């Protein structure tokens, strides 16, 4: 198997990487780019821990071939804050004690951000529907639901 060149941006930086045709985006991000905030939880799209944004759409990086993001804009959890300024979703997770072990947190935050981009003031049921593919075993989800709703409310107020 031969490596192929793939060009895309990661968190705004242009990258040109040599990847195998069967390399998963998850592994390329973690192993080649040292962006380990994107987590392996199951490898087959069951848990949501590996969620990143590809051209603005939340995407399970464990189900995405790296060659398929050629020409795309990829944003990982490391790219969400603007310098030291946290994204309102990140801030709301801290404010609402929505972070426990933290292993699901990157995926949860990426999903929450994608929802608020689409729908700035979601209802509780809309939050739950949107987040249904992301598993958390620590929180029982209540604080996560609250954090995403609060992030939406705060953004509207500001």
């Amino acid at each position, binding site marked *: 198997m031969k490596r192929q060149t793939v060009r895309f941006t990661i968190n705004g930086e242009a990258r040109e990487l040599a990847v195998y045709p069967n390399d998963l985006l998850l592994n390329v991000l973690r192993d080649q780019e040292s962006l380990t*905030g994107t987590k392996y939880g199951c490898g087959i799209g069951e848990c949501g821990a590996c969620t990143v944004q590809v051209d603005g759409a939340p995407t399970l990086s464990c189900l995405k071939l790296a060659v398929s993001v050629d020409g795309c804009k990829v944003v990982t959890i490391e790219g969400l804050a603007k310098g030291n300024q*946290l994204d309102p979703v990140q801030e709301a997770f801290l404010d609402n004690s929505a972070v*426990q072990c*933290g*292993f699901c947190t*990157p995926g949860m935050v990426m999903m929450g951000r994608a929802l608020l981009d689409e729908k700035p003031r979601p209802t509780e049921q809309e939050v739950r529907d949107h987040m249904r593919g992301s598993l958390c075993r620590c929180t029982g989800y*209540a604080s996560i639901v609250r954090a995403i709703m609060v992030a939406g409310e705060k953004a509207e107020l500001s």
Partner: protein
Amino acid sequence: MQTRTKLNTIGRNTHRKDGIGKVTGTEQYASDVSVPRAWYGGVLRSPHAHARIASIDTSAAEALGAVCLTFADVPRVKYNERTNCAPPHLYRDRYVLDDTARHVGEAVAAVAAPTRALAEKALRAIKVEYEVLPAMLCAADALKDGAPKIHETILYRGKETPIEHNVAVTRLIEVGDIEKGFAEADSIIEREFEAAPVYHAQMETKSVVCKPAVDGSITVWATTQSIHNTRQLLAEIYGLPLHKINVKKIAIGGTFGSSIQMNSVVPICVGLAIKSGRPVKIATTREEDMYDHCRYQVRITLKLGFKADGTLVAGHMKTTVELGAHNTQGYHFLGVIAGFWVSLYKLPNMKYEGTAVYTNRTPSCAMQGFGAPQATFVTEVIMDEIAELLGRDPVEYKLTQYRGLGDTFWGQGPTVKSIILSDGVPELLEVGAKKIGWDGRPVPGTQTGRFRRGIGMARSFHCSGVGQPRKTGAEMIDYSGAIVKLNEDGSIDYIQSLMDHGGGTCEAIAKLVAEEIGVPLSMVGISDVDTNTTVYDITTHATRGVFAGGAAALKAAKSVKAKILDYASQLLDIMSESLVIEPSEELGQGVIYCPGYPEKRMTLGELAKYLHVNSWGTIAAVESLHPVTAPPAYVTYFVEVEVDTETGVVKTLAAALGSDCGTVVNPGLAAGQLTGGLSKGAGCALIEAHQWDRQTGELASKGFWVDGKTLSILETPLLENLHIDFAHTYEPTGPFGAKGIGEASINPALAAYSNAIYNALGIRFREVPITAEKILAALSTKKVRRTQPAQRELVNS
């Protein structure tokens, strides 16, 4: 009792110190660690439930450039991967790699290679000839006369000891005289229960990195709840002095008990690193993880005798526990079921008979609650039934019988006894009943529509650690250490090997330290540490983190504070007893002053700098502490469910959860413990079961999470229907009055759901999970039974 009126830091919601790393993706877990020149490790796993390795040929894998490890390459040291029990109670039955596989998924060989792809290729190139042996996939098969042995002998108290009938361990515990007790009873009730094994489903799969050095020392990053126990066990296996093994403290992605033991991949990775002379990393797959560990399968028969006024007089419990292929902690598990059972309600006469059996399945280990969920399930469902038989409100009845203030409490088994000094149960039951609408609950069996609602209640507790007053003879090792030091600018380093599973344990302890010394929380740092730079801490388990680990750090903080005041006394010319330290958010410092002499003041930073520039030295303290109590962290559950009688699906409509954790240190995170407990507990009550194919020993889920489903965000109650309350208590033996909370938060779930479903349908379920299939089957049976006379529930003696 409240001994402090003003708290500056404890009880405030703050941004947890490790939170910024977690929300920005920069927090490192074991699988995130990268070391230059590291190779990828992989493990070859048995496809058979029981097989002897007739031959193993790694030459083709080695020809690909991989380094291979088989049982011939690792020290033949038999060990128990969980070393929390004192050595007389350790049952050693496993090797790093063995010549026999005892469950599907057990490690047979391992490889390390420069790339992930090559490691996978090398694993496939290993040729193994198995001599397949008969597999015992349930306790009944394993206990049969003449059943093949899963272990011929195990290492126990220094001797190879034969195992008979696959019984790993038994326990008999008796208090009083049950024959006399049952003779005095007006009524006796006897019921059988079963709780299925459950997969922990922690988000992070088990991972490890090992870096060897030329002097023979190793550095290890591992998913573990105890860096010191991991270090000790690696030393035991590989014959290294402890100082040559440095295990790093690193974030863990949830464990729920699954990493109390040193995980099986840890010594494999170390073996690969030593053999290859290179750093090696193993990150297990979800499938491997699901074959690695689960909660014990438990069958319990409980017989209770009681007087006409409801007073319990005698109890007899028989328990059969399936251990799986290895006895990680069977002795202790049998003991805690007894301990939790008799500590729920006053029982003057009891007999407990427990048997733990080997089977050819995934090894069981502790999971949140460790015996308490099962003991509570049995007890709280029977108590609900007794209350009904007596025509009494279960809440009112239980309050007359439970072990509360002033009563003796066993906690984790018969050697862990103490007197209960704080008790929030009456308060929590009152508030929970009100919030759930307890008085308006339906009469069981009276509803007829498709959707039937029910409210169930259960109460439980977990002991805060396993502390006890005896100087020797404890079953469990239980102490923590901590270092606290004052830096040259007045900030504090809090240094402890204790692990934080995510519940906020280290955050809470940083608050205890800040509160004690009198500095703003922003001036306390939680140090990145390892085994070489910390003193011993047993493990973050048994709901002991804040109570026991926090107490050790508090002891060190008190020592530091005494030294600070001693120096300040000299500099301010004020008796040290007259000085206080209070945090000033404005100055961002602790301020030392004498009330009444306001001019006599200095900041902690000024003091620290004075000590530094004048070479007076560093103020620091190292302390170690063994708690002498293990107070009950009570939790109460009220749940309202809706049962769909056409599909059998149970929906949680509302829940009122109460916790008596003494002083609440991190309110938001403590509430998160309860909501997390409800979610996992509801999963165990309704859907989760780790099931094996009876022929092959393979997991029915095949190791896929969707088929071994856990509850999602759609299956937990809406925020407005979720009520969390904390009791207003103060534990005199806890740091600033705090007790534990973690495990307690799941313990009542099984019983609360069983009681709620009974309330909705009028049918008792004594096997969990109470799946949709079981509900539909019971409903169809009940239709047939409806014409028969009601079964007499009581045997009058």
